[in-house]
């Protein structure tokens, strides 16, 4: 009976193998919604899962809509977007990723350069 109780106790711990989740943005540099004093050389996006480089990307635009990114590199769960020199102002990062478990997610956030 004790063995049976143990089995019943452990049963809720059984969970679907292969259950899938979407890659979340774990953190960004410059941080989401932050203000940085000087133009950053790049935006670094760190996700919660490994990414597929070919099908993941991001763009950075100024308030006027001009693109200020100069290419990307993806390694593991980190995506780096190189930037041109940024003038003071607000910039929007728009990203889309495919995690290796086949799910796509996208999002966007702003950061500010200058005061």
């Amino acid at each position, binding site marked *: 009976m004790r063995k049976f109780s143990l*089995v*019943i106790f*452990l*049963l*809720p*711990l*059984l*969970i*679907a*193998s*292969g*259950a*899938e*989740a*979407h*890659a*979340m*943005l*774990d*953190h*960004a540099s410059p*941080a*989401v*919604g*932050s*203000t940085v004093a000087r133009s950053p050389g790049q935006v670094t996006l760190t996700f*919660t*899962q*490994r990414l*597929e*480089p*070919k*099908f993941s*990307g991001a763009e950075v635009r100024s308030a006027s809509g001009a693109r200020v990114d100069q290419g990307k590199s993806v390694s*593991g*769960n980190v995506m780096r977007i190189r930037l041109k020199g940024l003038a003071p102002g*607000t910039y929007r990062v728009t*990203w*889309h990723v*495919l*995690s*290796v*478990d*086949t799910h*796509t*997610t*996208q*999002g*966007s*956030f*702003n*950061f*500010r350069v200058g005061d």
Partner: protein
Amino acid sequence: MVDWLVAARMVQFGSSIVAGGSAIFVASVGGDGRAPEEGRRSLTKEIDGTLIAALLAAIVSGALWLYLFRSQLERALADDETQVTLWSVVTDTQFGRVSALRFLIALLLTVLFWVRFARPLPRSESLDWSGALLGLALVVSLAWCGHAGSGMGVGGDTHLAADAVHLAAAAIWLGGLIPLLLLLRPSLPLTPPERYVMVRRFATLAAWSVALLVLSGLVNTWFMTNSFRDLIGTDYGDLLLVKIALFVVMLGFAALNRFRLTPRLGAARTGGSQALWWSVAAELLLGLLVIWVVAVLGQTEPPGHMHVGVTETGPVRAENIGGLGSAAHGDVSLTWLPSSR
């Protein structure tokens, strides 16, 4: 409306588990030297028919899964300049590469078992065990097609290993039930005591598999949820409870088979396997329902990943947003999901 992705996943998981489990059954249970050669050969021939059908289903559903993934990705990247071709999906994604490898394994196994099925080859232990190992690889490689294959570091490796063990154990137990049904068919030239020896051998394997299923399930849960409270009132939690309920009933049938009906088979001079056959068939039916729930669960967001999120910025971990102060100035608009802390 049919959700073809769920259907493809279900057939892929089910057929891989049946193929892997059947191949292992032939090598381990069917290889029992105490049973007469003629009976073992007849059993292997019966199982090979199932194996070939399961492998063909795995090949077709694998191709369908890959095609549906490509279509889904193409829609998701409609605004992007990246070309999404079947070739680029196969070569440039982990899912595509693993699917291609699994396709080759399934093809190789089909040829192997077809040759054994069509020509009366002498029994070969090395052939049986090669088939079993390849069958196991076919099942275990499914771990790289899901969430467990996307983690990083020691935690990611642990989750991946637990998922691989979970799949292997499912194949040995659940995948072995069809060969077990074939073994219990009266038409096979085996006496009840000979059948009994084989059934007992399978029961031992199945018992270890159940223990591994529970342990690996424990590890998987650790990685997929934050607390059991997350399982209450969510789609994922509801589905998981259905899965657990089915599993409990399956265990009930397994216990009935092991402790009541199998000894009856051992004591019988003739027959004795009909009740056991029906009971194993019920266990198998429940197992197929579990696979269906797993296929749906795979398309459902686990609660451990739902409690953080920002609609404006896309999914973001709550604790890592550095700009909450700026949000008050309107730089970013935050809307927490209902299950957020």
